[in-house]
């Protein structure tokens, strides 16, 4: 992409997901930091400002939900995309309330998520 490459944080306790997703996003021209543990992601969140955060919800604590809430608190402009095996209506509603931009159910298609992330990165919130 152009001068200021958009920066994306990817968090999932499945290393393969982190790896494939990071590769695909980089091929899309994004700068990607991938994590398999919530604690590491929270530390990275303090050091950098991300345009988009892509995270799973269900994992060993600190889980994705904490990262989402922390990002919301410290970086309200960061766009959020949640990947989840669970997508019941209640979780969906509360995620939307928090301000999560996209929710993708597992198993997902790589191309789909890359397109979603690119779209979110290109169009920051007004």
């Amino acid at each position, binding site marked *: 992409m152009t001068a200021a490459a958009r920066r994306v944080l990817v968090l999932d306790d499945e290393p393969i997901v982190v790896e494939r997703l990071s590769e695909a996003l980089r091929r899309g021209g994004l700068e990607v930091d991938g994590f398999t543990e919530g604690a590491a992601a929270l530390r990275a969140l303090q050091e950098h400002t991300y345009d988009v955060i892509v995270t799973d919800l269900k994992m060993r604590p600190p889980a994705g939900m904490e990262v989402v809430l922390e990002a919301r608190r410290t970086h309200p402009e960061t766009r959020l995309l949640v990947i989840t095996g669970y997508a*019941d209506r209640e979780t969906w509603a509360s995620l939307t309330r928090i301000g999560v931009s996209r929710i993708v159910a597992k198993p997902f298609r790589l*191309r789909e998520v890359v397109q979603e992330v690119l779209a979110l990165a290109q169009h920051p919130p007004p």
Partner: protein
Amino acid sequence: MGTPGTTENRPEYTLGAQEAERFRQFERAFLDRPTFSIRARIAGGFLLCFLLVAATAVGSLGLLHGARSRLAAVSRAAAMESRLLEARSAARDFFREGKHLEKARQEAEAALALYHGGGPALLGSAGPTELSRLGQSLFTLARGVAEVAALERFGAWNSQLRLEWEASLERDGAQALAVLEGILQREAARAERTLMVAQALPFASLLVLLGIIFWVVWVLGRTITRSLERFQGYTRRIAAGNFSPITPAKPYRDEFSELALAVNRMLFELQARESQVTRAGKLAALGTFSAGIAHELANPLTNISITAETLLEECREVGDARKVRLLEDLFRETQRADAIVRGLLDYTREEPPASTPLRLAEAVESAAELLHNEMALHGVRFENQLPEDLPPVYGDLGALRQVFLNLFLNAVQAMPQGGRLVVSGGPLPGDEVHVEVTDEGTGIPPEALPRIFDPFFTTKERGRGTGLGLALCHAVVRRHRGEIHVDSVPGRGTTVRLRLPTTPPAEEKGSP
């Protein structure tokens, strides 16, 4: 089947058409029998008692009347006899001592007068010839006495004539006396007999009464206690889990037949309930199990899928056609596994659906639209006969559309040679609507019907169905507080019946 707007009988609806038909067969077996109710038998017994008492009373009256007329005849005959005896004794006096002739004449006249006055009344006790002989004798006696009196007055007597008259009068008197004696004896005996019968009658009628009472108490009582014992047996049998219906035990129909009908009805309802509860329990267990598998599979499937996708992209860039084909297969198969997992997740979703009022016709029409090409391809004629004014139901339009989509897909696949696919329905009493989806397809074999809602159960050929379609329909309808039934005749077609409430879900309705 169910034409639009008809309201159907609710219990039959819960039974399902085949079970309802079986139930009706047993019902007919009872109803076809002639009615002979216990009530009628009790009434009949008492009527017999009444008739017996009435007959006894009438009989007694008749007998007493008979006895009285016998006695009256006796007294009449006795009066005649005493006059006759008086006349004879006076006549003898006259012939022996020359006195009392006038008295003899008077008594003979009196006896004749008695005969003329009451003679016909004696007809019952003496035969007509006997009676006329009596009259003859009395008449000749009276006339003889009168002639003797005339002869005496004019003194035209001789001893020869006297002897002749004496003998003649004696003979007439004896003759009349013999008849009277006969009448007296016979009538007295008859009166005696009549009185004896009158005496015995109450005892005889008591005996018959006893018989009737015995019949009512014993026979009827035995019918009742035997029926009760039979029903005790039924309750034990039902408690042990044998739900086969009660069959008629008697050639006629009585109050216990009505009870049997009610019990049969209950049995069928219980059976329907039980199978529903069993199915619900089975589905719940399968749901928990499948949810676990689905969630465990979601991660490895994602990993395989996105890895295959990555490789596929790379091979496309390099232009390795063979590997692209292999990877496309790999990718497609993960998509297929993915579809099953998604289906399972949908199926096992426990949450109540969104509840906005929606038109079922909309769900039906949008589902049919999605399958428009598929239907056209197979020559399936789709007819939506849902009435315009069908009350809205509360629920999730997407989920209900999915239900109709699955049902239509099944129907289309069951009619490879084409046919009619009809959606009909209407309101039901008690804030409910019913919808029927009827096809003219191959139908479902009866042995498959009980498992039709089980996940992964399919009657389709390998690879055509996941076995989740109807399971999902069932889950969605249950989440909408409704019921779903399938009736099918192999070779004729299948009807899926839905019943959904038109009231909002409880938490919204119940909020203050």
